[in-house]
């Protein structure tokens, strides 16, 4: 067959408030490695989810081997020969490698509910041999190291070819985010090997890797494919420009409202903080009214650090000082007691309490402000809640509305109000505060950050994008593999460029 194995023809997908895919054309040809890059929210994941049967397109055609197909479930996608290697681990630790590889597709190895282990192991071994792995089908999956698990994931994806008599399409979603050094080389060798027996879609943040392994690269932006390039005729800088598109206006981020912080007193100081396997030797200080942005790729240690500073995860060495006094951070409640607030990235799970009213959510973190000797004073409570709904312009039908019914932006404001309504608050840790918000809600968050600074709050920010990090921060600290690799001053009018940051990140 000479035509493409998979073809997206004019595919669009809309979610409430956002056009995730806008008339996308992509084709994957036989024995080809297709690179797919794009920013957060550019539509890559939506594209992959349509390919793997998790989502269905609103319009347009998905053509697999010349036939228009409707992939209603992940099982349909697997039957069509499309195998996914997910970004998150999708293996079960307590069963064997063979069971994982053929999970839900045991087929001839299970007759009448009874396992034929020999047959199952042989079939799994065939998959493992294809990628030249020494892992045994009988190994217990949880005994494998991460890189080996990745190989098992690969073998599992390859196993889709058993369901049909055609060569599979293997989708690698950020396969390199957990690998480094030799493991990375092994993976690249695997991709070369896959080229002979399958078509590959390779998604990664590391542009150099995409250039290295791909035969063709698609660049996505704002739900559209904006470019298709030959890796031999393009460099990282050009890819990056295509991906980012434009210089973002400083106005959007309220840069003119950013205040100088020189001479402000230190609020929180982190000295030599470390946790094995997550981050080490972290020194930080955040002054009153300052935003310190933590930059880095996934797993660079910045998220773990932010959670450690909130007491949600432990640290092994080092200390955290608040106003010069050493803090005990044994749990989130220690942090709250000390005046540290945390706006988590998982807003719907960790940020707001679904099922509780707007009012209940706002007063959740510091009941002390609305009560005396443990007894809530209703008038005080109403007053505090009304004040914050007004100040943050939270759009809600009433104070008693369930937060689950609010839009993402308004939920985020409720989370912010929860912390801000506490008079004790000194430090606010913002973990992806604008994730999943529309443009208007983002601007509200930016405005809020500027105002909070003006009131002398110290803010530690993990932003969604590099732009955001640079624009909102006074200082940017770049993490890589758990260590700080660079520090940039990003004071008003002296912003570093994105390229400078990216160089330190990868």
């Amino acid at each position, binding site marked *: 067959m000479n035509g493409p194995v998979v073809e997206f023809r004019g595919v669009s997908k809309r979610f409430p408030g956002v056009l995730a895919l806008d008339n996308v054309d992509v084709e994957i040809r036989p024995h080809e490695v297709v690179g797919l890059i794009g920013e957060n929210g550019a539509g890559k994941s939506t594209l992959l989810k349509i390919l793997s049967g998790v989502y269905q397109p609103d319009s347009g055609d998905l053509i697999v081997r010349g036939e228009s197909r409707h992939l209603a479930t992940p099982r349909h996608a697997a039957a069509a020969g499309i195998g996914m290697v997910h*970004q998150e681990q999708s293996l*079960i630790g307590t069963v064997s490698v063979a069971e994982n590889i053929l*999970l839900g597709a045991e087929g001839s190895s299970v007759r009448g509910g009874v396992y034929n*282990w020999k047959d199952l192991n042989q079939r799994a071994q065939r998959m493992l041999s294809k990628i030249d792995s020494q892992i045994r089908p009988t190994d217990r999956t949880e005994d494998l190291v991460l890189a080996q698990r990745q190989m098992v994931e690969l073998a599992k994806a390859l196993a889709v070819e058993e369901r049909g008599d055609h060569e599979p399409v293997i989708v690698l979603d950020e396969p390199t985010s957990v690998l480094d050094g*030799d493991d990375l080389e*092994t993976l690249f060798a695997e991709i070369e090997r896959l080229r002979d027996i399958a078509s590959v879609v390779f998604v990664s943040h590391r542009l150099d890797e995409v250039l290295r392994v791909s035969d063709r690269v698609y660049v996505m932006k704002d739900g559209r494919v904006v470019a298709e390039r030959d890796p031999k005729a393009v460099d990282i800088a050009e890819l990056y420009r295509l991906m980012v598109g434009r210089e973002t206006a400083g106005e959007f981020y309220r840069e003119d409202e950013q205040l100088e912080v020189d001479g402000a007193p230190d609020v929180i100081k982190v000295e030599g903080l470390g946790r094995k396997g997550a981050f080490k030797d972290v020194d930080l200080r955040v002054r009153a009214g300052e935003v310190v942005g933590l930059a880095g790729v996934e797993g660079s240690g910045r998220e773990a650090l932010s959670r450690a500073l909130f007491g949600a995860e432990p640290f092994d060495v080092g200390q955290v000082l608040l106003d010069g006094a050493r803090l005990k951070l044994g749990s989130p409640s220690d942090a709250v007691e000390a005046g540290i607030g945390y706006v988590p990235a998982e807003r719907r799970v960790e940020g707001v309490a679904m099922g509780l009213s707007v009012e209940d959510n706002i007063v959740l973190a510091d009941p002390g402000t609305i009560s005396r000797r443990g007894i809530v004073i209703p008038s005080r409570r109403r007053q505090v809640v009304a004040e914050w709904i007004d100040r943050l312009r939270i759009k809600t039908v009433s104070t008693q509305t369930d937060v689950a019914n609010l839009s993402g932006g308004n939920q985020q404001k409720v989370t912010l109000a929860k912390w801000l309504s506490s008079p004790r608050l000194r430090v606010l840790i913002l973990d992806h505060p604008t994730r999943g918000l529309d443009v208007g809600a983002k601007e509200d968050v930016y405005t809020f950050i500027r105002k909070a600074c003006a009131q002398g709050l110290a803010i530690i920010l993990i932003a*969604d994008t590099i732009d955001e990090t640079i624009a909102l921060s006074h200082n940017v600290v770049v993490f890589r593999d*758990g260590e700080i690799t660079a520090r940039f001053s990003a004071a008003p009018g002296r912003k570093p460029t994105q390229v400078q940051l990216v160089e330190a990140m990868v």
Partner: protein
Amino acid sequence: MSQVQEGARPAAPANPDASSTRPAPRVAWSRRLLTAGPPIALIALIVIFGAANSRFLSGSNARGIADQTAILLVLAIGMTFVILLGGIDLSVEGVMATSSLVVALLAANDRNSNDYGMLAVLAGVAAGALFGLVSGLLHTRLKIPSFMATLGMGAVGIGIATVLFAGRSPRVLDEGVRSWGLDKWWGFSPLTYVAVAVLIIGWLIQRFTRVGRYGYVIGGAEGIARLSGIPIMRYKTLAFIISGSTAGLAGAMAASRLGVGDVLIGGGQMFATITAVVVGGTLLQGGRGGVHKTAIGALIIAVLANGLILVGVEPYVQRSVQGVVIVIAVAATGWSLRTRTRTIK
């Protein structure tokens, strides 16, 4: 908006080992404890009680322990399948009650003229399976938490048993049924052989069938199982049917041993059963454990009960000792799962 990084939860650091090499043993101590702890505890108990009272190690006492373990082991093997899925079956005592009365009233007895012999035992098991089926359907179709669905079914079982009981225990007169509870085969009660047979069957199910294997998969990560197209409800329901059947069999075994059908025949068994499963090393969260571990757990409970009597501990103190044991076991087995923000409900 421009960006290059996508935030997400921090991934675990990459391991430098080349993937093509054999895996280095990387077994955490907490998991070793889960595997080696129960056998070590069992041996330690035997040594301690043996030292404290020489009668403990005698052949007749050992056989007594084995016979005492039989009913508990049967119950615990069925329970293991449910706990592996992260559920729990609290209907054990009610199911035993109904089953014992079904057996006593269908076999030759002093209440009616039925005389179905060993078929009565089968009916008891079938009654248990039916309870399991209903519990499983309530849990999976109506999305009732398993503890609540089975607690309700347990009460239903007690209720049905009370109606059948009608004020007086029916006595089993059937020679065949009674002989299983009273005879000795090579020094052991026939019921002990039944328990061993159930253990072997349970292990075979766990090792070689979909119900068994998918128990680990669903208990380990239900989301992954669902995305793999595994019919989760079916396998969950099957686990409850297995647990119901073993409870039904246990009720029949108790009726055969005591010679009566009784509402309170399973009194105290539910707690001992859950303790046996957990002490054996099956995680209450599911996904990890197995019937072979449960066998050790059941022996620990039986040895503890027997040993405490021999060293002169009051019987009513024993219940407290069991309570302490289960709390310690749950804390020890769940040690590796502790994180500060984990929610325990």
